[in-house]
């Protein structure tokens, strides 16, 4: 078949050709470029070589090599959380594809837009247990919003268009495209789509005005109203709307852990996250609310504690873009389906036309007093090195626009409790799946999306160990992120549970401070620093912020520091253990 000339696009982005003859891998790269893809995190292998060959010819797409595919998925995830566009990751068939799955599942649980592209054995070999064959569509179906397997190269542009559309619209999530190798290489007359419509998929963006009016009425009639903001606020970028609504009505804002930092945590109306390791004042006060406006949250068990006890005496309004979340975990009084940004905008407009029925002075006084009381009563010693003083020091030294990621476990919960997020949307954590090893590659992805901002991973030694090979990518691709390893030589959270629930019988939790993270960083030609005191930590942090190479700061702390408060699983928020 003779190759037709590639004509490209005009300045409006309209395609100036209709049908051209292209290979599957070429049309994949072209369509990725048309979707605005600037970077792909991935690793080549036997079944995606044709794609990598085409990527090498692209002047638009930067290809970032990882040393393990799980990192590629987390990097794409971090990139997506910051750029609020789908992150793209790539792997070969079989083990490459299965290595992506943890990262895909992480994105799925946190509703992060991602397009994962995997190579597959030739279509003629599928089902024959060929070398590096894995039914990745079958594996990934429960953890993706959709999984495609185009069997003709001419289908690829439309599949890619649909994948980006599905991943980024409605409740976002990861989408897999699995492309057999012969589909990548075969040439066909290929049409590039301009717009698409998927008949079974029409997310509701604009909530019903009637329901918004009812919600506003309920909130205005409340004597002790409270907002519970979840991750949906960050996904829809409704930070300003949330703040406007809260300030207009003087309603305090608690968040879920996924919602941490969607509302400036130093704001007088901020209460911080509720939940298993929520702020004491947030866990106390949310149970006192008579009307709870929950936006963009799924009432996860980690947030609510025993759900039958959660907000049982309040009227609950729940706004979410996913209709299947309404009444899923928590029966609510008013469920509203729609995009959080649009819904909050509508509420703000509605509030402007109304007079408030109740004076909230006494409620405001009360929660300010409770906040103040908790702050003084549970203040920690800031002179000695501990996880708490470390994180407070960190907050003092970091510019407010810094993007902070976390690993999972004690380091994550300490960050939740003791690191106040100032600029909304700058805190990224694997909150749903709780994936250890997420924070470092997510920080790399975040730095790629926002190269001018400092990016720092609050890590534990156990978690950082899982994806430390990302140092190679950070150094070779000039992505200077900072990792602060809060090093207790333990799988700290597991150890804490063994102390509390298993009679201090430590089993499988001691890491013996191996490896030496300073030497490890140096082995990758990164900057490795150790801080034994808060002063040393401040100095190291300054070096890290100035450095043009990735920095690992190892901070040894006590192996037995606990995270408190703690709501024991299965118990109610009111039964929180303070210390």
């Amino acid at each position, binding site marked *: 078949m003779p190759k037709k000339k590639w004509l490209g696009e005009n300045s409006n982005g309209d395609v100036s050709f209709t049908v051209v003859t292209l290979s599957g891998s070429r049309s994949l790269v072209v369509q990725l470029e048309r979707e605005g893809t600037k970077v792909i995190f991935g690793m080549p292998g036997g079944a995606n070589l044709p794609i990598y060959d085409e990527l090498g010819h692209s002047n638009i797409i930067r290809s970032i090599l990882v040393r393990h595919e799980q990192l590629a998925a987390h990097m794409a995830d971090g990139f997506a959380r910051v750029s609020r566009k789908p992150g793209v990751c790539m792997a070969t068939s079989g083990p490459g594809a299965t290595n992506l799955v943890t990262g895909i599942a992480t994105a799925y649980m946190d509703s992060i837009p991602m397009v994962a592209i995997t190579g597959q054995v030739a279509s003629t070999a599928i089902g024959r247990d060929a070398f590096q064959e894995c039914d990745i*569509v079958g594996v990934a179906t*429960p953890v993706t*919003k959709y999984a495609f397997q185009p069997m003709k190269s001419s289908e690829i542009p439309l599949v890619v268009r649909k994948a980006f559309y599905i991943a980024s619209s409605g409740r976002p999530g990861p989408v897999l495209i699995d492309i057999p190798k012969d589909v990548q290489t075969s040439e066909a007359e290929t049409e590039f789509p301009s717009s698409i419509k998927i008949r*079974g998929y029409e997310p509701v963006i604009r909530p019903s005005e009637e329901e918004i009016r009812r919600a506003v009425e309920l909130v205005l009639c409340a004597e002790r109203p409270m907002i519970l903001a979840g991750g949906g606020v960050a996904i829809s970028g409704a930070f300003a709307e949330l703040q406007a609504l809260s300030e207009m009505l003087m309603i305090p804002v608690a968040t879920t852990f996924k919602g941490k930092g969607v509302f400036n945590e130093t704001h007088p109306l901020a209460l911080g996250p509720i939940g298993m390791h929520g702020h004491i004042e947030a866990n106390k006060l949310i149970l006192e609310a008579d009307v709870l406006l929950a936006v963009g949250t799924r009432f996860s068990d980690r947030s609510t504690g025993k759900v039958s006890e959660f907000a049982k005496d309040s009227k609950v309004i729940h706004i979410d873009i*996913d209709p299947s979340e309404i*009444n899923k975990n928590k029966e609510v009084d008013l469920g509203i389906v729609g995009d959080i940004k649009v819904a909050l905008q509508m509420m703000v407009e509605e509030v402007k036309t109304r007079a408030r029925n109740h004076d909230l002075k006494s409620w405001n006084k009360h929660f300010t007093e409770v906040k103040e009381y908790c702050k003084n009563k549970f203040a920690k010693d800031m002179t000695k090195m501990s996880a708490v003083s470390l994180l407070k020091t960190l907050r003092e030294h970091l510019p407010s626009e810094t993007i902070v990621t976390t690993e999972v476990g004690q380091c994550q919960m300490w960050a939740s409790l003791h690191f106040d997020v100032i600029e909304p949307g700058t805190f990224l954590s694997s909150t749903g799946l709780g994936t250890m090893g997420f924070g470092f590659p997510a920080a790399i992805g975040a730095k790629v999306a926002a190269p001018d901002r400092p990016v720092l991973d609050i890590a534990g030694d156990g978690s950082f160990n899982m994806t430390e090979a990302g140092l190679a990518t950070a150094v070779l691709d000039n992505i200077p992120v900072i990792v602060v390893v809060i090093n207790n030589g333990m799988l700290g959270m597991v150890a804490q549970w063994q102390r509390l629930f298993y009679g201090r019988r430590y089993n499988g939790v001691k890491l013996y401070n191996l490896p030496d993270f300073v030497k490890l960083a140096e082995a990758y030609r990164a900057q490795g620093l150790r801080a034994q005191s808060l002063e040393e930590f401040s100095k190291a942090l300054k070096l890290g912020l100035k450095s043009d190479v990735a920095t690992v700061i190892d901070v040894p702390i006590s192996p037995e520091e606990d995270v408190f408060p703690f709501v024991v699983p299965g118990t109610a928020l009111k039964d929180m253990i303070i210390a």
Partner: protein
Amino acid sequence: MNSLTAYPSQNTSNEPTRGGETIKDSQIWDNGTRTNNLNSIVYAIVENKRGVLHRVSTMFRAKGFNIMSIAIGGTIDPELARMTIVPSGDEASLNLLVKQLRKMIDVIEVGTMTRDKSIPRELALFKFEAPNSETMKRTFEYLSNSAGAKEVASTSRSFVLELCSTPEEIDSFIAKTSKLAELKEVVRTGVIALQRDDP
């Protein structure tokens, strides 16, 4: 043909039996299809393409939904298929199931049908051993005829009947006839149903 207006059949006196023993509901559900204790049958119009059944069944498993039966077939539009699902569980779980189905990208339309407003049908094929005595044979024929079952194949040793009816009628038919002749095999399609139009 029996009247179907009494659906769902409430004739608890006619417990289904197999080989003379009463069969528990759970056993029937393990081996065949019956309706649930809910008042609803769910239908879904889905894309008629590879992988859709896998996605739907994966969702059922992942979300912990149990179903009594699922039946799938073509529609007037060759690009669409129709699934008829008889869920088990309570009203709340039915609502969640419908929402989860509706959320799926390959699912175009989801609806529930109440029993009194729908026409449910199931097709069953039975292979019986020939009855031992002439009396039993005649009783068997009487039961078959009155149930509307049709003989579709026979040899000297066995014969095959087909019966299209409500799941309850089919259960009841099994219960009555298996006392007269040994039921060797039964195949059931699962329930399909159409909404009844308002008069």
